[in-house]
């Protein structure tokens, strides 16, 4: 991919970091998440500048593009899609604060670009949900702005210090608010225990009359729709990049295993059916990779559809990779079934693919 050679150095550094630090811990964290360990890994990742990748240089970050972030997520995901998903949530929150600007945003961005060693500043992003009984709302009481309600399952929760919260107001307009993790009234609910992306503490977040005050309004009230849509699209693009990264690893593992496993009188890569499976994986990887990069290259490509395509393809690839490993593929220590579980969760991040596909057309009719 010649166009992206300018990122090759960063990507190589991140790839080496991921192989060294994330690869070693991924299977253990999949069994039992250890938030201290994850925070330590995050701090380590600062050495190669990952948390501040998107943050402008004047705020202390690397000022890289979203495409660069996506390419980095892609190589992180090769080692662990769950770890990559932590950074994706964080990048999207950063993007929101960068785009919105303002003093409070700036303060957070600086903290995130140069995090404290023992307690790194990690960000999360919350999108409105139609599925909660008590959706998040802004209410005014005695002249104060208060945030109340419960979010849908959100990533990064218990790790996060800063939440960029998009709220759907009663009139349908969108407002974005910055909420600090430790603020009274903010509590993280019980973890969802999803089948994959285990390091990411998905949970609902409850806001109980959280005082927000004017200075924490990231957007002016009711004017955040465009920002939210750009954040959502960015998230879709990132999820697609992660899906392709982890699926790429599933493919490599399967191809490697097929070259070694002897069955039916030969190494199984010589069986045309195995070649068909591997070839199909490669076909999907090629198209998926081109598609997600296109999202960031200012192409016209629909980010939601790209996420749907890439995550569906990733799951298919992972399922076949398990199959090629036979019984070994089903065992935790080989790390392929983990990829399959991770991909299953990636498919549902940011919304159901079935809905996104329909919405891509329905939206044009409104």
């Amino acid at each position, binding site marked *: 991919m010649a166009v992206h050679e300018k990122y090759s150095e960063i990507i190589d550094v991140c790839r080496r970091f991921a192989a060294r630090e994330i690869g070693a811990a991924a299977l253990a964290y999949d069994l039992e998440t250890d938030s201290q360990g994850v925070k330590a890994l995050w701090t380590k990742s600062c050495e190669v500048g990952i948390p501040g990748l998107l943050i402008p240089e004047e705020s202390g970050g690397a000022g890289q593009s979203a495409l660069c972030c996506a390419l980095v997520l892609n190589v992180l995901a090769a080692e662990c899609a769950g770890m990559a998903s932590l950074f994706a949530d964080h990048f999207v929150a950063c993007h929101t604060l960068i785009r919105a600007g303002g003093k409070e945003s700036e303060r957070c961005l600086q903290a995130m670009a140069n995090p404290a060693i023992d307690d790194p500043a990690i960000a999360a992003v919350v999108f409105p949900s139609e*599925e909660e009984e008590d959706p998040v709302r802004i209410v005014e009481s005695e002249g104060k702005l208060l945030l109340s309600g419960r979010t849908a399952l959100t990533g990064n929760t218990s790790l996060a210090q800063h939440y960029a919260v998009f709220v759907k107001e009663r009139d349908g307009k969108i407002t974005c608010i910055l909420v600090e993790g430790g603020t009274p009234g903010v509590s993280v609910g019980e973890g969802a225990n999803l089948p994959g992306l285990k390091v990411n503490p998905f949970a609902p977040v409850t806001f109980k009359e959280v005082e927000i005050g004017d200075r924490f309004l990231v957007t002016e009230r009711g004017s955040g729709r465009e920002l939210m849509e750009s954040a959502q699209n960015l998230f879709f693009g990132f999820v697609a990049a992660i899906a392709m990264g982890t699926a790429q690893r599933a493919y490599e593992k399967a191809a490697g295993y097929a070259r070694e496993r002897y069955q039916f009188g030969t190494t199984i890569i010589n069986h045309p059916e195995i070649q068909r499976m591997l070839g199909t994986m490669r076909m999907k990887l090629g198209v998926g990779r081109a598609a997600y990069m296109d999202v960031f290259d200012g192409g016209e490509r629909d980010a939601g559809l790209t996420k749907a395509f890439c995550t569906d393809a990733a799951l298919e690839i992972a399922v076949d990779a*398990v199959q090629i490993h*036979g019984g070994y593929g089903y065992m935790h220590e080989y790390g392929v079934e983990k990829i399959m579980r991770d991909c299953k969760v990636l498919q549902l991040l940011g919304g*159901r693919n*079935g809905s996104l596909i*329909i919405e891509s057309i329905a939206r044009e009719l409104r």
Partner: protein
Amino acid sequence: MDHLAAKYGLSSDAPDLVTTVPALGKLKKIRPSYIKRAESAQVTGRRFAREEILPRVLEIDKECTRDPRYFDWDLWRKANDEKLTVALIPREMGGLGYTALGATVLCEEMTSACMGITANILFNNFGLLGALVEFRTGIVLRIIRDMVKAQRRGEPLFWAWAITEPSAGTDVEDERAMATMRPSTHAEKVSGGYRINGTKCFITNGSLAHYVIATIPLDRSNPLESIATFLIPTSSEGFSVGKVERKCGQKASQTAELIFEDVYVPEENLWEPPGRGLRHTREILSTTRGFIGASALGVARGALERCIEYASKKKIGNHFLIDEDWVRYAIADMIKDIKTVRAACYNFAISVDTYHVMGLFESLPVKTALKMIPERILLSEFVQTIGGLSLVESLAGKIKNRMVSDATVERFVKEGSAVKVAGTDLAMNVSSRVLDIVGLEGMSHRYGMEKCFRDAKVTQIYEGSNQACRLDLFHQEIGSPQ
């Protein structure tokens, strides 16, 4: 709209065998007792699934994630009290006397709640299936007696069927493949018996088994012509259990590595002589592949039923999830697939009852004996001794071999493979698609659907990978290339 009107499957205790496959209604008119027995299997299975398995399934899954050796003995005992552990043994001898159809329905009901737990309870019947292969009456009667006695004492008597080796999975199930197999086990003829060395892997119940039925070659360089089937008590010196695997799903069912170090097996435990081991394997596969298909069908059903329940209650804005058009299309599509595969599974089971080994229980000599002789005597040492007489064994063997010829076995491997691939692909597709519908929250452990997905994957791998099954299907239907 009242979606709850459509309560069925796991969310209802009303039996629906004849309603779901109406052709069985016709059969019921012709052979009422046959269908009634299957209906009773459905009632028993569904009740056990709803009352005993469902309340504990998620906790057991969690416990087994922490410790792959965790086993819920309490639940197993409940199943044992209901004789589910001896479901295939004739009623006259102390079992439930389920036919293949009955057992299929029972599997489907129980796996709709949890396939791993079902494996702990029902897959033990492998012991009997293994013994039925040669139909050596002495062995069959002894095994039935041991199983029934253990059941009555409330004690486990576990069987494992060990064919897979670290270096050979597909290769131990297929003639063309076995010719080039690189064995990890070896049996050596010694005075009075055999000495066995090597490792078997991924053996269901291997860590709990009292007996292992294993295929092992005498000549490593010529496995096809030297592979034999042994019955190995796990109390034998030199036998040990290696690691118990940490798996993606079906965690309640233990999968273990078995290690043989100079294990001595007496001559009488040679079930199949060298060169006949693969035939033994194929005969077991000729029935079990169909059962795996039906069990996987149960997994698919369980996933879909949970999804319907969830989607009927999940509000999105001002409507329910199940009211979304694409969700309805998807659910309809899955119901269509489940109906089709279920008909195929029952068709397979009825064929096994009619043309395969289960027909033996319906054959005149066996039926008469079961009717005339009291249970006390059927289970006695005396009858077992008579059954072990070579005259009786060879007579019984003849009857059985006429019924289950080599051609029958290969035909059923083919039919079973078709059902196995259909059922297991269904389980994988449905359990995955269901998660696409319910979304991130619905995918949480507590709703049980993601577990169906994790459980489903292995069904495409074991009992002959779906690739191996497709190869069998092609070769038996179209013929082998030269």
